[in-house]
């Protein structure tokens, strides 16, 4: 089987400079295609920069925006994933990832989980997506798109894999933080992401493709470290931290078949069982059904009854 050539465009987008970023995307897309890439992946908000705040509305594009159409035109004979601000017909702004193939916008994923805690303030400026689905692609396998924080929620990789994705693509603008000397790769953020991506690849027996930006927006520095992880959970490629570049890696899709036959975790998933439990949990948490697993005396939607705690905050019972 012909290897699949993936190009990771680990770039430093310019904040708010849509035209400059579009030009850079077109340039790298052409370079990757000339190098024989089948799939070219750009980071989250690669067309706009990350810390936009009130600039978000000024750089937003509709899906039929001619600038996006023109970028898509550069994908004849290949696939690309790009990140941008999407404005819907009813003027909501989304952090979006588009799959561009053979000159067309094939699919748009709207970031489902918007972090609004710690250094993040996304929910203030953006609407959250409500749909998660895998899409067929010209590569002959299903693609599942996710954006950054989407991967900090277990259901996302699982649902994408169950829906037919064999390549999970996560595009990110992940700010690097925590330089404690004890971290595996010198950066706490990188250590966490690496652990997650290997776990997801193994549990979904899928390829995980991660493209994270580099460069600086205001106070935060993005750490790069883009990766391709095989369905065995082993890293096939790890880009350097902080270095801008177009990194190319070949993967063998036969590896996915071998792993899924040897380790049929996906075959053994029980979505109907999961669904029943989720329906029960949703009703119970909403207080619409008696909580079958709650302690006596627990309030509606709560599993645990209030109890006196000792001075140290420990439960006495």
């Amino acid at each position, binding site marked *: 089987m012909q290897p699949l050539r993936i190009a990771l465009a680990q770039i430093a987008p310019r*904040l*708010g*400079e849509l035209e400059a970023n579009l030009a850079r995307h077109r340039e790298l897309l052409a370079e990757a295609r000339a190098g024989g890439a089948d799939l070219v992946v750009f980071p989250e908000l690669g067309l706009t920069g990350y*810390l*936009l*705040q*009130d*600039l978000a509305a000024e750089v937003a594009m509709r899906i039929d925006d001619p600038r996006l159409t023109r970028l898509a035109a550069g994908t004849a004979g290949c696939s690309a994933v790009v990140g941008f601000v999407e404005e819907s017909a009813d003027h909501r702004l989304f952090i979006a990832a588009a799959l561009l193939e053979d000159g067309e916008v094939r699919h748009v994923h709207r970031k489902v989980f918007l972090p609004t805690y710690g250094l993040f303030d996304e929910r203030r400026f953006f609407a959250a997506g409500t749909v998660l689905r895998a899409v067929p692609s010209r590569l002959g396998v299903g693609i599942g798109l996710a954006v950054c924080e989407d991967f900090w929620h277990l259901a996302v990789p699982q649902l994408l894999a169950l829906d037919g994705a064999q390549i999970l693509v996560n595009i990110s603008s992940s700010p*690097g933080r925590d*330089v*404690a*000397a*004890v*971290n595996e790769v*010198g*950066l706490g953020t990188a250590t966490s992401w690496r652990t997650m991506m290997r776990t997801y690849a193994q549990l979904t027996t899928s390829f995980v493709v991660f493209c994270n930006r*580099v*460069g*600086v*927006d*205001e*106070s935060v*520095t993005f750490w790069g470290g883009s990766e391709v992880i095989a369905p065995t959970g082993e890293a096939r490629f790890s880009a350097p*931290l*902080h270095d801008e570049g177009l990194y190319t890696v070949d993967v063998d899709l036969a590896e996915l078949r071998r792993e899924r036959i040897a380790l049929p975790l996906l075959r053994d998933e029980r979505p109907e069982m999961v669904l029943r439990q989720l329906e029960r949990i949703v009703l119970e948490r909403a207080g619409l059904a008696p909580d079958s697993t709650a302690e006596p005396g627990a309030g509606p939607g709560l599993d645990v009854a209030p109890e006196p705690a000792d*001075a*140290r*905050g420990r439960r006495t019972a």
Partner: protein
Amino acid sequence: MSAKALFTLPPELAIDTDVARRIIAEFIRGQLRQAGFERALVGLSGGIDSAVVACLTAEAIGPERLLCVLMPYRTSSPASRADAEEVVGRLGCAGTLVDVSPMVDGYFGAAIAGVGGGEASAVRRGNLMARMRMAVLYDHSVTWGGLVVGTGNKTETLIGYTTLFGDSASAFNPIGDLYKTQVRQLAVAIGVPERIITKAPSADLWPGQTDEGEVGFSYAEIDRLLYWMVDKRRSDEELAAMGFEPGFVARVTRMVATSEFKRQVPPIAKIGPRTAGIDYLYPRRRPGSARRSGG
């Protein structure tokens, strides 16, 4: 050269200095590029913080784009000046010296009868020195054509051991999220002269003054406490269980609380539909904001 030999480093504060230097270099280059500047300047006191910032800036953009400004007052330690001059010499960057004594003494002189200039307290004198140095730095930022790089560390920022609009004023700060002991680690890694790393930190406002003497505890102790209290969100009870003396915890907690205003921009009375910092929120550098197109 071993870090342990030069200072006390609590293990939880140990950082990967290679990664920290890389992040800081990206940060410095990014700040300048976004603002459309190629040069930077640092007020160099002879102490460790400004020495580290000068080295980091030279590492990020090259020493030829850095200006170090030495701004002693007449009572400043001559050793500090010698240490600052050694940093300039080692880096091979531009350096200039501005004596702030006439500015400070001119203000506190007889000319301002009525505000007690003659017997001004050390705090007033220290604050004015810091603000005069800020004014000199910002004037040089015009002639040098560069941005002022801040040198305040996380420890002094959190306990409020800074002068508002004085030493805390800068265009950007590369070490403001590093505790003093972590700055020392960086100093060792980046090759700051050993004498600067080992001497007692001092605001140098009067002869013999030291930070640790004035504040009453060592940087190793306070950094460790701040790390668990602020970064790791430990409660007073949890801190006590870890062995921190409750009186020490209470004193530091109060210093942090009472200096909250120093870490924030002044509030604007909300009156109109869109107010800067409240519901008019833009990146501080955005398209059209650079004074010229950056590289």
